[in-house]
């Protein structure tokens, strides 16, 4: 058990009743809340959860494609975040760090269930000769959704972070812990694959 003295706390003074403050903690920034949570405050973490759960669920949903499994992934990701919090050094924004945890949780779920549940091939074939433009458009959107789901996981994750979440290539590369050229290659391959499947669908 190697120990040194605790680092000096440079944050604002801690009020005696943390919970009372955090129930109205909307004005506190992530950085401060992360530091309090790292010191063991579940109330601070709760504010972070309520602030970021939308993002975590949205990404999980895009990576997984169905709501029930996406909720499992989102829950696991946020709980893992609590456990991993002491190791979070603030090199990136808390939200970016959550992206990485969410992606890993989704990858884990898909690896576990791969033998029984194929991700593609079970989609209903859209009707191709319906006259209404809207129905066709809806079917096209559904086909695109299926095409995104059918991408290899690494390509899908790259595409989701860059195209859907608006991360820069550099941010996405750091989030997924791959070199930037690799990340760029994955996004480009994903876009080419989507283009091809949408042409095949027409």
């Amino acid at each position: 058990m190697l120990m040194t003295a605790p680092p000096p706390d440079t944050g604002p003074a801690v009020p005696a009743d943390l919970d009372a403050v955090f129930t109205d903690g909307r004005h506190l920034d992530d950085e401060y809340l992360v530091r309090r949570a790292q010191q063991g405050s579940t109330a601070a973490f709760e504010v972070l959860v309520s602030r970021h759960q939308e993002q975590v669920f949205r990404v999980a949903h895009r990576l997984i494609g169905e709501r029930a499994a996406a909720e499992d992934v989102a829950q696991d990701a946020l709980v893992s975040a609590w456990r991993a919090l002491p190791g979070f050094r603030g090199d990136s924004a808390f939200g970016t760090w959550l992206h990485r945890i969410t992606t890993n949780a989704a990858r884990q779920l898909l690896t576990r269930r791969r033998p029984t549940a194929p991700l593609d091939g079970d989609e209903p074939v859209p009707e191709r000769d319906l006259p209404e433009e809207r129905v066709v458009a809806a079917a096209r959107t559904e086909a695109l959704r299926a095409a995104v789901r059918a991408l290899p996981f690494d390509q899908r994750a790259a595409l989701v972070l860059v195209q859907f979440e608006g991360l820069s290539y550099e941010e996405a590369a750091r989030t997924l812990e791959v070199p930037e050229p690799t990340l760029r290659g994955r996004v480009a391959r994903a876009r080419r694959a989507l283009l091809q499947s949408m042409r095949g669908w027409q």
Partner: protein
Amino acid sequence: MTTPGSSARPSEGVLPCGVELDALVAQVADGRRPEDPAHQRVCPHCRAALADLRELDDELRGLAAEPAPPPTGLGDRVMERVGVMATHGWHAVVPERDGTTRIAAWVVALVARRAALTVDGVGDVRGQATPPPAAVAAVRAEYADAGPTPAQRAGAMGIGVAGRKVVVTVQLTARPGVPLPGLAGAVRRAVVTGVRELTALDVVEVDVHVTDLAE
């Protein structure tokens, strides 16, 4: 829309006119400047591919704009699990400049027990006798692979850890004739000092249960 024959073959990545498809992808998706604007204006292959790419880009934007609201209660369910972990977690966690120190809860329990035993008037010391089943289940779920032994688990149950903060519960028997409030105070001081010296953790609370008189 493109017709077969006139369209690019995206799998090969190069249009019949020799332009790399990736260059056009970068142009549409990332807003990069066209490499050869004059060629693009007249080349049917490039124009078709660009139209296709723009359509895909629009559709992806549409997909990205679709709301995916989290299910009601997601945050509550997360905090329920976090709460259990925070109270009955297996490790106290001390982030340092050059790494993280984790101290197993049963180690804290052992240190606390020894510290309590040094107090005059204390007979025997135990951790919390019966851990709440909810706590055991949660701990098993979180540490399925490398779980501690039942004895370690039982010993740790009287210890609540969150980060570097520790709450200790000790059950002890007292020697007859010793005033109990004074004894409990002495045990608290001994536990706080002992745990802080050996683990550098903050003991924020020591609950002392006097369960019996030692014979």
